[in-house]
């Protein structure tokens, strides 16, 4: 493993009337060389603190940070060979674009000609050729973002850290930069840790996603694993949307699980995990795993809300007192069911996962 976090805990001492705060607790994480790992979670979940500990701006209270086989716990940021893209970009306002990008190279005392070569190459990489002599204030938000990225990349860091780098951009630009960052990261094969609270960003960018909540890691996995096999309600809800339906296990045969839910018995295929009969489970049913038809499906329900969203139609259906959100993705369906309509609902049994009741 290239970068390892071993049992990291960070406790902020009490200060100025705020009592002691444990921001990160027992975090274990292994990152391979060239991998892009995203730390995803709501604000206050400890993802930024974790990133800042990797960078060296905070020191872990307990635990070890190991980079390339060496413990770097007590190394100050400037000796870690990492670079970081900040949420606010943190572009030096008193230097022009070239000087900004060359800053770290100047610290290293590289020869002038080499610095110039590297700066030009990285400007090309982020598509900012010819902008070198501009002042930071003359650039748009997206361009400033590219400068911040270029300034980090030019250092050829062992690890590239990004702290919500896209959150100050508008939606369209964010989408563009997302692809751009991924392209460059792959091109340079640069080990990266990316912090965000935006699940789509995490899904599109990452090799692996780490979902954090209240200072602990909830789950680590590839985007597909995270979406298909969430290990907790928190993850299921944070990545994508989900209906949670309680059910009682009837029997399990290999990966087929027969449960009783919403008054009917269904058999789910492709289940991960072992369950004993008569135990309580929670089914994770994503909206796209529903089929809402006038008739012919197993469950009977009443439409409570119908919204036309353009690409899909979204329904809230009440089945035995519980509201299930479902979507209709078939473009041939022209008319919405009116509210109050009696419908039947079916589920994609091959996709639904079950969680033991916590």
């Amino acid at each position, binding site marked *: 493993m290239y970068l390892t976090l071993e049992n990291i*805990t960070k*406790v*902020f*001492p009490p*200060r100025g009337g*705020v*009592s*002691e*705060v*444990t*921001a990160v*607790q027992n975090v274990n994480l292994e990152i391979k060389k060239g991998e892009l790992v995203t730390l995803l979670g709501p*604000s*206050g*979940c*400890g*993802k*930024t*603190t974790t990133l800042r500990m990797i*960078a*060296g*701006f905070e*020191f872990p*209270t307990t635990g070890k940070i190991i980079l390339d086989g060496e413990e770097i716990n*007590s190394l*100050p*940021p*400037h*000796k*870690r060979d*990492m*670079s*970081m893209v*900040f*949420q*606010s970009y*943190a*572009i*030096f*306002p*008193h230097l022009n674009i070239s000087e900004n990008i060359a*800053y*770290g190279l100047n*610290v*290293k005392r590289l020869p002038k000609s080499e610095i110039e070569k590297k700066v030009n190459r990285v400007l090309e990489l982020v598509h900012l050729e010819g902008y070198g002599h501009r002042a930071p204030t003359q650039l748009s938000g997206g361009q400033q973002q590219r400068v911040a990225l270029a*300034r*980090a990349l030019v*250092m050829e860091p062992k690890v590239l*850290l990004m*702290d*919500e780098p896209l*959150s100050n951009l508008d939606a369209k630009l964010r989408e563009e930069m997302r692809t751009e960052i991924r392209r460059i990261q792959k091109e340079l094969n640069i080990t990266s840790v990316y*912090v965000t*609270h935006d699940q789509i960003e995490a899904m599109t960018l990452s090799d692996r996603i780490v979902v954090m909540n*209240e*200072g602990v890691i909830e789950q680590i996995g590839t985007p597909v694993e995270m979406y298909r096999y969430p290990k907790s309600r928190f993850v299921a809800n944070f990545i994508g949307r989900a209906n949670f339906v309680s059910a009682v296990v009837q029997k399990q045969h290999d990966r087929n699980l027969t449960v009783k839910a919403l008054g009917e018995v269904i058999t789910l295929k492709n289940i991960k995990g072992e369950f004993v009969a008569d135990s309580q489970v929670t089914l994770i049913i994503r909206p796209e795993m529903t089929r809402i038809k006038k008739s012919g499906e197993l469950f009977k329900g009443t439409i409570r809300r119908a919204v036309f969203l353009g690409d899909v139609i979204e329904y809230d259906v009440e089945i035995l007192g519980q509201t299930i959100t479902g979507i209709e993705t078939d473009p041939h369906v022209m008319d919405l069911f009116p509210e109050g309509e009696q419908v039947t609902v079916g589920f994609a049994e091959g996709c639904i996962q079950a969680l033991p009741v916590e």
Partner: protein
Amino acid sequence: MQANPSNLVYPASNASGIKRRIREFALIGRDPVLFIGLLLSGIFIFIFVVFPLYRSMIGGFISKEGAFDLTYFGRYFDAYYGPALRRAFTDTMLMGLLTATAGTIVGFIFAYAVVRCQIPGKKIVHWLALVPTVSPPFALALSMILLFGRSGLITHELLGIEFVKGMNDIYGLDGLVIVQTITFFSVSYLMLKAMLERLNPAMEEAAASLGAGRFYLFRTITLPLLIPGIAGSFLLLFVESLADLGNPLFIAGNKTVLSAQIYLAVIGEYNYQKASALSLVLIIPTLVIFLIQRYYVNRRTYISVTGKPAGSQIREKDPIIRWVVNIITYQIIAFIILLYATIIYGSFSSAWGVDFTPTLKHWSMTLTRGVEAILDTTFLSVLATPVAALLGMVIAWLVVRKKFTGKDALDFASNLGGAVPGTILGIGFVMAFNKPPLALAIVIYALLALFYAQVIGKRGYERIIILVVGTAIGVTLTKLEPRTMYFTLGGIYLAIAVVLMISQRKFAKPLAIAIIGIYVMSTNWATMLTKPIAAFSRSIERGFWSNATVQFADHIKVILQPTPALLAIVLAFAGVVLLQGLSGKALRVGIGVLGLAVPCALSFVDVPFAMVGGAYIIMAAFIVRSLPASVRSGVAALQQIDPSIEEASNILGADAQYTFRKVTIPLILPALLAGLIFSFTRHMTSLSAIIFLVSAKWRIVTASILSEWEQGGVSIAAAYSTVIIVFVLVAIFVLNLLVNRMFKGRGSVDMSQGF
């Protein structure tokens, strides 16, 4: 996005508080710049703020013989001294209340006129309102007397009033309050102006849209939002008024106030115990208010003064209110102009009150006899200015950016020196540095030596060798005859430089060490260098130039012969910076020992920190007084800089020192320049803190004004005042020019932070 961990409270972990402190210090130790900054500012504040204040506070309880003694406090309650003392106390408080009230009202009127009444000539009004803050402390009292005194221009010449005994004249509480109001209202004006500008117009518009009439609106919205500012300005003016020494000495007449009582106890009776006791009486109300201001009023502020002014301003629509406010403002401005014009004309009139014909004779006196004071003051002010401004920036940086135990204490203490009445600080300085206890030198040296050994040595035993042997050699060196000692000390540095140059094959650092070595030796050559200059001065005709040349010789001596104990502190830090990270155990220990021996010898030579009568104690007093202003301007500047800018530099490979130099300093340069000017202004105009520190050799203009005044040299006093005002205005003008030229569009200087 910064994680907001406040909702994640877990049970306390097992590490105890003390352990955590130690860990914290270990972490600070990894960041030598932080440590040096912390230690340097901590030591400065300890020596020059905490220690002197402590001395002046307890001085009142200790008699000449060193016994515990309450005589001077008891006098407040006895029948003989009691009534007069108590009256002085109540008069002082009354003066404070009246000045604070009047000053706040005037300040509010000015702020309202400038922000909301579109007063014509807004810029000029603004700058004229600030002039009193940059003039010497009693300039206005002087011109009030020239205008309204017993033989004043207006009272006597124009109105023909003959003063008889018992008649109410300008002297006394009424005149004093008028003068203080004009002198101090600028502070209130700046505070309230900032608040009015930052008052969000939407709030008043919302109230108006809900049907509030204009007076109802003012009473229920505008005023409550401004209350913290008004309260803050009131308290600040109260403290300023109590601390004021210059004006009461001039114009209080037969009323006595505490600050003047303290002054007289020292100058008249040479009774430091009495002065200390009175200081304690004065400092208690001051400190109470300082604390209320800091911990109560500031926390109840709805409007953040550090933010940007609101985009648009509400304008006063009622023409009657607008013009009433504007006309009052103009009248006060006119009065201020009149007062300053009087000072300037006063310096040219033959004999004020008798003969108003213009003459240059006072100026020629001022420029020959007074050139010493003018040059000394300017020289010491200029020399102290960069130290004050840089120290201010370092403290501001520590306070805003760093987390460490004792941060609040540092912030508090750095403000304290400027907040307490200057007389108290001055007394403390005399008591602390006349015969300073050896313990002070030992504590300071121990701190420095521990830090030095910690950085230079790599292992425990190396550190112990450096500490013990270095100190032993140092103490032995103090036994040498001074001349030999300085040559030896300088020689040690030269030797270190040579060894390093040969063994490490580096050039820059050894060169710096060699220069330090020569500088240390040059102490011995100072007299040799200055003798010909002094001789030359005697060869030219007595007058301005000969006096100026003598001063020049003195100033060279100041630069070459610093107080050894202070030099030791600087050298210890220089050693840390220049000698750290040596490879080779023998080299490290050997050079480490020698590098410590020099500061050690200097720490204990003669009587350490015995500085009374010298130039350095005056500079120290200057710096202590101006520090809060430069800290404030630094804090304001730093708070506007995103902390991730410094972190970005850090993670790009730059250490704290490089970051501070290449990123932080350039970004706060406007504030640094402002800090320089604020400091210079404070230095040039300070009186109360340095009045007890002036000596025959080191004269300060403000003190000279006072003594001229006491001898009846009104016109010379006026000439001196003019000189100071002109110097300060020129300095400010140059700053403004510089800032506008160099930093157009990048961070403007907020002058209000300086007062």
